[in-house]
């Protein structure tokens, strides 16, 4: 499972998809494609975006739900918490304060 998360996060387009889903959850494939092309200059085929979404979904970072005739994509951050706790949970000092 963790391997899937790291693989999913390794690609900049997939990270951009997660950025956009952070702004508004529950997006159709059309909205995700529109956001990638108009806001990020990532003009790619619908099939290519679908494949990226499939990788994110298999990692558990994106969940899809059907609502009547529509299909929406939601962000799920739970897998991110699991991979950070892997190391942070064993650090007795906790995460250091970092300047933004």
């Amino acid at each position, binding site marked *: 499972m963790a391997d899937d998360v790291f693989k999913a996060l390794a690609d900049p387009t997939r990270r951009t998809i997660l950025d956009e889903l952070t702004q*508004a959850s529950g*997006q*159709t*494939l*059309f*909205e995700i494609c*529109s*956001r990638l092309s*108009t*806001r990020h200059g990532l003009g790619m085929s*619908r099939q290519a975006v679908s494949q990226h979404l499939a990788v994110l979904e298999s990692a558990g970072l994106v969940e899809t739900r059907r609502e009547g*005739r*529509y*299909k*929406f994509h939601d962000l799920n951050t739970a897998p991110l918490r699991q991979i950070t706790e892997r190391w942070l949970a064993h650090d007795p000092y906790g995460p250091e304060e970092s300047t933004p």
Partner: protein
Amino acid sequence: MKIHMTSVFVDDQAKAEHFYTEILGFRKKHDIPLGEGARWLTVVSSEEPGGTELLLEPAGHPAVKPYRDALVGDGIPLAQFAVDDVRAEYERLTALGVRFTQEPVEMGPVTTAVLDDTCGNLIQLATEPKETAAG
């Protein structure tokens, strides 16, 4: 050459007439019985009665359902209408019970939203920035 008419398939022409005129605010232009309940039903913008007509065409052909199901599933609109202020339209139409599959979002210079026309189609509303709207 210019675009005189375009069409969308609608599940029910009476329901479509109501939605496109009473809810969206278009004006009926032609309504001619074609037999067996079908009508030649067109609407135009009330801001531009001489402009492009939209034909609300019966969706009886067997190819229509799989075609529209696939597009609607992915959230793809079948037509786009220009509005002065997509956010104001979003507020007005949601108050009337219209379902949006995409809330207003700035897509580059254009702000868009996508609604369900209750007759089987998704429709995109778009507002272009004032500077380029005339160009």
